[in-house]
């Protein structure tokens, strides 16, 4: 099973990279952008086939390693 983990800075934690990208987009005259957040995507291939178990395992991976929950949030997406 393929699992996509998206890690991004928590709302309320200043995202300097997002701000810099936003600024650059504005200077390219993409004026309709109201906010930019930059995160990272981690793609996992799991042997597990049970969705609930996979989600539980990846949640532990996020809490232990993939995200720093002091400053980051994570989203887990299971792809069949």
């Amino acid at each position, binding site marked *: 099973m393929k699992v996509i983990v998206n890690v991004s*800075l928590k709302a309320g*934690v*200043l995202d*300097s*990279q997002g701000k*810099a990208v936003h600024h650059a987009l504005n200077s390219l005259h993409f004026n309709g952008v109201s906010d930019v957040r930059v995160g990272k995507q981690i793609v996992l291939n799991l042997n597990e086939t049970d969705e609930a178990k996979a989600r539980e395992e990846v949640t532990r991976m996020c809490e232990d*390693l*993939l995200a*720093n929950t*002091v*400053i980051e949030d994570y989203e887990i997406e299971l792809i069949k």
Partner: protein
Amino acid sequence: MKVTILQFPGTNCEYDTQHAFKDLGAETEILWHKSENVPSDTDLLVVAGGFSYGDYLRSGAIAKFSPVMKAVKEYAKNGGKVLGICNGFQVLTEAGLLPGALKRNEHLHFLSKHHHLKVINNDNIFLKELNKNDVVNIPIAHHDGNFYIDANGLKELYANNQVLLTYTDENGETQNPNGSVDSIAGICNKEKNVFGLMPHPERAMETLLGSDDGVKMLKGFLSA
């Protein structure tokens, strides 16, 4: 006095740190991260600066799972003194030995220069040779030095005198190079035996090389 200095793949300040402590008269040992224990005669354990595991994923994120870190946590729990410099500070926050986290510098640049710091609290072994409000000149060299902690955590840091150093100009006026909360450059844990800072005192040991203000900081550990 025995100083044990941790070495991960990618650590690059271990020899500077060793040189600095040797200069101050300490016995030193560099400890590879595969070790499962901290030498029993260790008086101070230093997590040296560098780029452990290439800063992959996040600075310090992978180093925290090195075999030696379990022993470091045990050592700290039993009151052993731990000092994390730069990447070492990042490793200690990732490992949960110090509160908060280190984010990418606000202006996204890698900073490598001398910077002034003000002593906020000196009621600890690390800064006891200095006075409150003293200004020291210490090099910084980091990309992820933007200290973050939430409002409650910050309140707790102040309540327990855990804020050690802030970034200032030479007159002690706040000057924040990286966006860190309240311009914080260094903190300690509540028990005051685990210390972390982004600046490099071990690089400020000779006036010939710009500053010897690091001597007063590191010496604190030797005169315990």
